[in-house]
C-alpha cells in the first residue's frame, strides 16, 4: 500500500500537483487518470522518488520517502518495477540481457538460475523465442511485454506503469491490461497505472484517481464512474459518442 498525503510539486513557480492525497491499495490495479498535462507523470515520478515533492508525504508500507536520499531509497527501489511509456529497454542489449540486467546487478543467483527466471518471466508475458532479438527488432506491443517482464523479474512489491497502452492496437492493449491485472492479483502487489485509455479504466480500474490540474477531483471504482455526478470526470470519461451510448445503456 502506498499513501500520499497533501503533496505539492511545482516547476519554476508553476504548480503541477496541489494538495494531492490518495491511497494506492495492495492487490488492486490503481489507475491514475486525467487529461494530458494534468500532472499524472509528475505524480508517478514523485512516487518513484525521481522528483521530490515540496510538501507532503509518500509512505510505502510505513516508510516516508520524501526527503530521503538516493542512497536511502536503494533498498526500496529493488522492490519497485516500472514499465515506462516507451518501454525504456536498453538499446544495446537484447531481450534476454534486458531482463537479466536487474538480476545481474542485485541477485546472488548463479547464471543458470537467473536465465531460468528470465525465461519464466518471458513465458509469463506470453513471449517465447525472442531472447536474442534486440529492441529495434521487435514490435511496440512486444517491447511493452518485455518491459513488463523486466519489471517483474525481481518479484517487486510495487509495479508502476506509465501509459502502458499508448501506441498499441486495441487487441494488444487489452492483452497488456489483462496481463497487468493478472500479475497484480497473482503476486498480490500494489500496481499503479497512469492512463487515459478509457477501455483500461472500464476493464481493470479497481481503484481510480482522477486528477485535474494537479488536484484530486474524484476517486472511486470503474462501476462508480457511471453514477458519478462529477461533471469534470463525466466530460473526461464520456467524451466520445461510444462511451456516451454505453452510459445511456448502463443499468
Amino acid at each position, binding site marked *: 500500500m502506498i499513501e500520499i498525503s497533501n503533496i505539492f510539486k511545482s516547476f519554476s513557480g508553476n504548480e503541477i500537483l496541489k494538495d494531492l492525497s490518495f491511497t494506492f491499495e495492495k492487490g488492486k490495479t490503481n489507475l491514475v487518470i486525467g487529461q494530458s498535462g494534468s500532472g499524472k507523470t509528475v505524480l508517478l*515520478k514523485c512516487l*518513484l522518488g*525521481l522528483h521530490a515533492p515540496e510538501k507532503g508525504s509518500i509512505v510505502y508500507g510505513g516508510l516516508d520517502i520524501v526527503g530521503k536520499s*538516493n542512497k536511502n*531509497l*536503494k*533498498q526500496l*527501489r*529493488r522492490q*519497485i518495477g*516500472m514499465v*515506462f*511509456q*516507451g518501454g*525504456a*529497454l*536498453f*538499446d544495446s542489449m537484447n531481450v534476454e540481457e534486458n531482463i537479466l*540486467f*536487474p538480476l*545481474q*546487478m*542485485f541477485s546472488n543467483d548463479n547464471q543458470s538460475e537467473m536465465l531460468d527466471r528470465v525465461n519464466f518471466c518471458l513465458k509469463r508475458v506470453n513471449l517465447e523465442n525472442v531472447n536474442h532479438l534486440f529492441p529495434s527488432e521487435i514490435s511496440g506491443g512486444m517491447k511493452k511485454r518485455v518491459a513488463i517482464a523486466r519489471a517483474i523479474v525481481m518479484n517487486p512489491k510495487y509495479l508502476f506503469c506509465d501509459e502502458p497502452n499508448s501506441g498499441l492496437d486495441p487487441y494488444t492493449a487489452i492483452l497488456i491490461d489483462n496481463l497487468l491485472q493478472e500479475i497484480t492479483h497473482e503476486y498480490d502487489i500494489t500496481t499503479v497505472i497512469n492512463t487515459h485509455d478509457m477501455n483500461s479504466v472500464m476493464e481493470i480500474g479497481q481503484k481510480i484517481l482522477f486528477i485535474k490540474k494537479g488536484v484530486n477531483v474524484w476517486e472511486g471504482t470503474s462501476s462508480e464512474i457511471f453514477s458519478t455526478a462529477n461533471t469534470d470526470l463525466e466530460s473526461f470519461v464520456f467524451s466520445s459518442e461510444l462511451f456516451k451510448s454505453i452510459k445511456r445503456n448502463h443499468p
Partner: protein
Amino acid sequence: MSFSLSPSKPGQSHDLKAVQEFRKIEHANAITKKSAFFEILVFMYELKKWLFIRVFCKFTFILYKNCFMGLIASLGKFILFILDVFRKPERRSVMYRLVLKEIYELGFKSLAFVVFVSLFVGAVVTLQTAANMTSSFMPKILIGYATRDAILLEFSPTIISLLLAGKIGSNIASSIGTMKVTEQIDALEVMGVNPATHLVRPKIFALVFFNPLLIVLSMFAGIIGGLLAGTLSGECTVAEFVSGIQYDFIPFKAVYAIIKTVLFAFVIASVSSFHGFYTDGGALEVGKSSTKAVVYSSVVIIVLNYILTQLLLN
C-alpha cells in the same frame, strides 16, 4: 537689470549714451546665449556619460550573470557529476565487463582511423620539412629529427586527441543523450542503479587506459609514414631518416606526450558524457548535445595543452 532679447534699433536721433546702452545690452545678450549653449552642451555630456555608465553597468551585469555565473554553475554541476561518477559501483564484476566492452567500442574501433590518419600526416610532415630545407648546408637527418618531434610532441597527443574528441565524443554524448530522452537513464535510477557510475565510469576508464596505447601506435604510424614518404620521394635515405629520429632524443618528451594523452582522454570521456547526461528534450537536443560535447572537449583540450606544455616543458 532686465535684458530684452530683441532690443529696438537706435534711431538717428539717439545720442551716444543711448548707443553705448544698446551695445551693453547686446553684449549681455550674447553672453547669456553663449552660457545657455554651454549649459546645454554640459548637460548633454553629463547625460551621455550617465547613459554610457548605465549601459556599461548593464552590459557588465549581463555578462557576469550569463557568462561568468553560467560558467561557475556549469563547473559546479560538472564537479558534482564527476563525484557521482566515482561513487562505488553496485557490482564490480559488471563494471569490469563494461570497461572491456567500452575499450572495444571506443578504443579498438578507432584503431584503423588513428593509424590511417597518422601514416598520412607523418608523410606530409616529412615532405613539408624536406621542401623547406633549401640550404644544402643543412644535414638530411634534420628531416627525421623534425618529423619525430612534430609527431611526438604535438601531432599524436594533441591532434589525434582532437580527432578522437570528434569521433568518440560525439558517440558518447549521442548514446547517453538518447538514453536520457528515451527514459533509459530513469529506468536505471528506478532500479536502484546509479546511472552516472554505471554509464560514464566504464567510458572514462576505457579511454584513460586505451588512449595512450592508441597514441603510441599513432606515433609509430606517423614516423613510418614519414620514413616511407621521405625515402620513396628520394628526399632522404632510410639511414639518414633513422639517425634523425635517434638524434638528441629526450625520453621525457615521450612521457610528456603520454601525460597529455591521459588527461585529454579524461576530458573527452567526462565532458562528452556530461553533455549527454544533461540532455533534455528529443532528437534535436541529442544532436545539439553531441555538437556541444565535441566543441567543449576540443576547447578544453586546446587550453589544457597550453597549460601542460608550459608546466612540463618550460
